[in-house]
């Protein structure tokens, strides 16, 4: 019966897409392993300054973060536009920094408690007055190792 024409010889066979899920899963696992979830949402503006002589912060479990910057748009009505400190998920005053560091330090395993670094993520438009107060607090609780977290880049671009 001539109802169905025979396939022409030149036709390419369809490409099998059976392995597509495997490829996508591979990508998925890659992204799952290399990325980290944001542990706290930012309440402050946080454009970091640039610096070129930077060192990488290895070992995330040894780092305590302090964010400084002026509150984001939605919080400006309540908290104003002066730079504020953010500890974990809420705004804090300078006096709370010391007890925060002590509390965070107590949460870490014993062997890490002496090698902790305080990473200061400070908006580039903040003033040094607040930073100095934080530094003073850090000195009081003997958290002397600090890291001014920055982006990698030419430091002179900060001045523009």
């Amino acid at each position, binding site marked *: 019966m001539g109802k169905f024409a025979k396939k022409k010889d030149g036709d390419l066979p369809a490409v099998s897409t059976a392995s597509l899920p495997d490829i996508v899963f591979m990508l998925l696992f890659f992204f799952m392993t290399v990325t980290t979830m944001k542990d706290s949402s930012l309440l402050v503006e946080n454009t970091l300054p640039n*610096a070129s002589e930077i060192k990488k*912060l290895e070992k995330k479990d040894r780092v305590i973060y302090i964010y400084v910057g002026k509150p984001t748009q939605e919080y400006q009505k309540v908290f104003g536009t002066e730079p504020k400190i953010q500890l974990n998920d809420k705004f804090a005053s300078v006096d709370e920094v010391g007890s925060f560091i002590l509390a965070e330090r107590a949460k870490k395993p014993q062997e890490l408690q002496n090698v902790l670094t305080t990473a200061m993520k400070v908006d580039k438009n903040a003033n040094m007055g607040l930073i*100095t107060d934080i530094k003073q607090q850090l000195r009081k609780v003997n958290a002397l190792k600090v890291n001014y977290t920055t982006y990698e880049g030419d430091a002179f671009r900060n001045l523009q």
Partner: protein
Amino acid sequence: MPRRKGAPEVNAGSMADIAFLLLIFFLVTTTIETDAGLDRMLPPIEPPEDNVIIKQKNIFTVNINKNGQLLVEDELMQLKDLRKAAMAFLENGADGSCNYCQGRKNAESSDNPDKAIISLKNDRETKYSTYITVQNELVGAYNDLRNREAQRLYGRDFTKMEAEYLNPETPSSIRDDLKDKVKRIQDMFPQKLSEAETTSN
């Protein structure tokens, strides 16, 4: 009529779609964090027991005012000249005990790199970005000098050696070897950068 074989096969054609959905979710919600910066040590709060008298010529004072202008050794200076000035101060070597220094041995400047101290003061209204730029230049001055010595002694940059030493993925055999080298270079130009309390006006 009884079934021929066990359960019928589940169509897995939409698996790719589900995986894509998950993939896109992770792509959107996660950020690769920028965790690098300038490492600094704060001075301990209790003052040292014996008040060491430091000669004025061994202190390199850097003052930043609230407009971001620099006063270096009581003279106005542009930020871009700071690194050179700091390097010249650090490797001045007035007492001649530093045989690797290439400084001018000016009697008015620092005795040797071990005694040289950089003192950084800032105003409460100084902008953070300016402060970081100044810190960057001062750390850069140390790094440039250390790189030069590391190139001379070991044929590679100090900053690279230090990064490799601090990287936890480096095998411990290489780390042990690097430890002494890093320590030696650090001792040649010890980082003595004091951050005094800020002035209020």
